[in-house]
């Protein structure tokens, strides 16, 4: 029982150590300002919106999922 308990505390110490290492590493990260990051997301959107077929619909002739219509004429 005692062994199990000391095992538990060793693992939780090592877990805590790992967590601190991880947090230290994350804290050192170079962060970009949110306004800049948001502006970049916006710029990407605006640059690519013309090519987005779900926003600017492609003409039916190029849409692979269009219904194929067959026209009949009376002879």
């Amino acid at each position, binding site marked *: 029982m005692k062994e199990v308990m000391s095992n538990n505390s060793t693992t939780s110490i090592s877990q805590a150590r790992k967590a601190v290492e991880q947090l*230290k590493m994350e804290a050192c990260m170079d962060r970009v300002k949110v*306004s800049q990051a*948001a502006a970049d997301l916006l710029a990407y*959107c605006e640059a690519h919106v013309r*090519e987005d077929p*779900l926003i600017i*619909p492609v003409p039916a002739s190029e849409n692979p999922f269009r219904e194929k219509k067959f026209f009949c004429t009376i002879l």
Partner: protein
Amino acid sequence: MATEGLHENETLASLKSEAEVGGSLEPRRLRLQRGTDYGLVLPVHQVAERVEALGQFVMKTRRTLKGHGNKVLCMDWCKDKRRIVSSSQVCHEHAVTMPCTWVMACAYAPSGCAIACGGLDNKCSVYPLTFDKNENMAAKKKSVAMHTNYLSACSFTNSDMQILTASGDGTCALWDVESGQLLQSFHGHGADVLCLDLAPSETGNTFVSGGCDKKAMVWDMRSGQCVQAFETHESDINSVRYYPSGDAFASGSDDATCRLYDLRADREVAIYSKESIIFGASSVDFSLSGRLLFAGYNDYTINVWDVLKGSRVSILFGHENRVSTLRVSPDGTAFCSGSWDHTLRVRGMVFCFPVCERREDG
């Protein structure tokens, strides 16, 4: 106002001193991520105010696929943009019967020549595809990944040679398909990992995973290290998807919200939610430009969000049970949703007419 966002008993001075002295990193990281630190915060929606609103969308269901005899759990598009693989509760996809129930994950290989799937069997198996009706595909099956709990998600990396898996055992893993060897494992989630997504190839070797521990974690595939973690959701994260530029990712959660996290700012930058939406989001995906976020929910609907403005652009009905999976096609012309109502629906844009006055969608 620089003092907005401060809690009671806090002053700018007290927060600054806490940061300098190095008082507990964990709450500070969480506060930074929630944006309540240091007041001035410009979320994406404010920056996007000057952007033109999107018009009214009309989407039409182009195809309804009814081959499954049971709940559709997962689907993936082939890079040829025409084929889909889907998996269900009683394993039939592309006419392969698997010896287990609940095939929870499936993925198409980049070449289109194989598919990977797995679920409650704790394994991820790869099947080379054949269109020869005489050949028994199940006979050529290769077991690649082996976890100690269910497989929740899988994805080929840039080639047919490696597979990334996520599992209920709380880990993700990278496997070599040919040898079945474990190349790298990713430990860090405190509970089941439910989803993963690989970064678009231009941005390098990382992937994001989401789990039942409410965390979304970004990993370096080569070192196995977690490089960033985000913990603002209030419940299980069911789905994560990278923004097309690779600088951000969206998540859908059982807390009924979808959120956008920016990787370079290292924080949540937008929330997509409404008081009227109370059911969890099961699956999210971006349109090609990243302007639209499609999210499937457990209330049988699909909500289409304007990523920049934060408003809902459209709500799509049609499924008769919860939407379990949703993917936009590789060329962006359509998206496919799979549901517990046994069907998959492929939807595309019919037209979009502009509105003069943008009113808040009720």
